[in-house]
């Protein structure tokens, strides 16, 4: 096991996939000089044809990635969640809909890597956590890694998947260190994490917390702290939102009878909302207390450090939510 930084795990996944399959290529803004760190050393190893710096034209190059994927390529596009608005038409009208609309003729193995730079004083235009909006649109697989090993293994799966995938990379985790297994220590000599399989991060019996992306670490901290009081909190990381491993969530709630969801997206119609509705519909009789959603407040991200932290879920808010479920 090696201690690897989250952003290095992304880089490892890209390099391994580009070495494995010559149809894989990278495109995005300023990737040759790796301004965000994830695309370091790609240009020198793979050359200009497979490492494309794009103009500021999200609609243009998001669509070009789609077209290339239709004819046999496997593009990886680097972008920020906040720039995705500019290219939404291509993501929705084309990437999400083409396969179904053309009766299964189109196959689009395209990956968008979307960084979420929230929590660092970037203000409202650079801090989006937009995955719930894409959950509402059929046709796109949605990946939300919470640690370096999953980041690497899920990105590799995304590159090999034959459907459009958006990997939401939580910027608050960019510097996170975690254990990533060495390839030679793995049975297949590589780390590939399948979609739709949640991970049990902490086992517990009193309450379940489902964390999304950076919310998983918050949930784990809450679990560890409450353990000292004798409160046993189970933590589940869904890892992918489409497909969603609802089975693990429902069976956990069946055991604990209580559910808190922590999600850095805006609260209304969030991933937390969807998970809450699934449990309300399919696990209602297991519940001993109302479901608690701890998501971002329904307000834009303010620049000032005096206000920004109040928007997001944190250990304090999640702990209070767990206590509320236990009071019932």
């Amino acid at each position: 096991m090696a201690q690897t930084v989250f952003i290095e795990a992304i880089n490892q996944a890209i390099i391994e996939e580009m070495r494995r399959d010559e149809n894989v290529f990278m495109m995005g803004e300023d990737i040759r000089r790796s301004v965000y760190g994830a695309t370091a050393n790609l240009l020198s190893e793979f050359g200009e044809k497979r490492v494309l710096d794009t103009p500021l034209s999200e609609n243009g190059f998001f669509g070009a990635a789609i077209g290339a994927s239709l004819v046999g390529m496997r593009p990886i596009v680097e972008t920020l969640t906040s720039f995705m608005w500019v290219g939404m038409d291509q993501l929705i009208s084309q990437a999400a809909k083409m396969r179904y609309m053309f009766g299964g003729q189109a196959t689009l193995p395209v990956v968008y890597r979307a960084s979420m730079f929230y929590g660092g004083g970037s203000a409202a235009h650079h801090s989006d956590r937009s995955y719930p909006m894409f959950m509402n649109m059929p046709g796109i697989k949605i990946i939300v890694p919470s640690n370096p090993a999953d980041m690497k293994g899920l990105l590799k799966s995304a590159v090999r998947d034959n459907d459009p995938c958006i990997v939401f990379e939580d910027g608050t985790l960019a510097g996170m260190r975690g254990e990533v297994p060495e390839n030679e220590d793995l049975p297949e000599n590589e780390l590939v994490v399948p979609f739709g399989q949640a991970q049990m991060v902490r086992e517990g019996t009193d309450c379940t917390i489902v964390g999304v992306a950076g919310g998983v670490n918050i949930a784990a901290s809450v679990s560890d702290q409450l353990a000292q009081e004798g409160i046993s909190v189970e933590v589940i990381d869904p890892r992918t939102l489409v497909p969603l491993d609802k089975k693990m969530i429902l069976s956990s709630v069946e055991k604990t009878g209580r559910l808190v969801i922590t999600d850095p997206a805006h609260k209304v119609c969030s991933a937390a909302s969807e998970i809450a509705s699934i449990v309300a519909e399919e696990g209602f009789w297991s519940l001993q207390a109302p479901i608690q959603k701890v998501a971002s407040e329904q307000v834009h991200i303010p620049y000032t450090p005096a206000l920004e932290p109040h928007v997001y879920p944190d250990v304090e808010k999640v702990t209070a939510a767990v206590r509320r479920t236990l009071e019932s």
Partner: protein
Amino acid sequence: MDIDRDLLLLMLRRMWMIRNFELKVMEVHSAGEFAGGAHPYIGEEAVAVGACAALEDTDYIAGNHRSHGHPIAKGGRVDKAMAELYGRTDGYCKGKGGSMHLADYSIGILGESGILGSSVPVAVGAALAASIKGEKFVSLAFFGDGASNQGALHESMNLASVWSLPIIFICENNQYAVTTSYAETVAVEHVSDRASAYNMPGILVDGQDAIAMYEATAAAVSRARAGDGPSLIEGLTYRFEEHSLGLGRVRRGEYRTQEEIDTWRKRDPLDILEQNIIAQGVATREECDDINAETAEEVEKATEFARNSPFPEPSDLFDDMWADPIAFP
């Protein structure tokens, strides 16, 4: 340019196929045989047929909403196209796409987009794949004068030019975006003038003349295959019918004079090609009429095929959502 006799006759056959297909669509649509809208390509046949005559099966095209003509021009099947309009399982898209979303991946028809301008970046992507892989296929994007104002078009032309991609942008300038005229919405005299902003050739062509469209496109295709980058071709043309079937019943207010429509109808692309073919001695009047009759017969059979094809079952609703299916949602 000397054009092969067989190619001229193929062009005439495809133009008649489109014309007869569209006439049939208008007939059965007004009889209420299928739901939804449809956008007749009548009057514009020379643009798609001339352009696609310059392509191979291994080349790609992407179209727009007025797009029954593009797949037929590329060699697509009228029976599968008609069955798609009827929403049947034997349709090109098994009834999931309808009139605005015909596609045939077996001959490079990447599909059509009801969101205008939106299929153009996709066509750029096919050309990008050719460039990355060092392959010789080209890509061709059809769009109208209305879509020429979309940001996607400008982003696409810039991308294609800076990466020197093998793509041909074909603007079908029929002079109206639904009811809004070209003059009211485009800041330059010709869409092809915009090519200079993207450092590519911009060629204005008589879009009623299939041979002129073929020659301009063939030159652009050669240039693209040689690695010399994209071209923008504007075919100046005219939509003989209403924007979409049924629109005339709801629309209030005229936007084209009868005189203008009549003037353009006198420049019917089929007449122009037939006169040329007959003058060159490639075919007789009678042979041209036979092609018309044969294609009308084929369209008739296609319509019967469509009517007899089954509708999808409700259990087919979720088919083809995913290439790698998922359990939930």
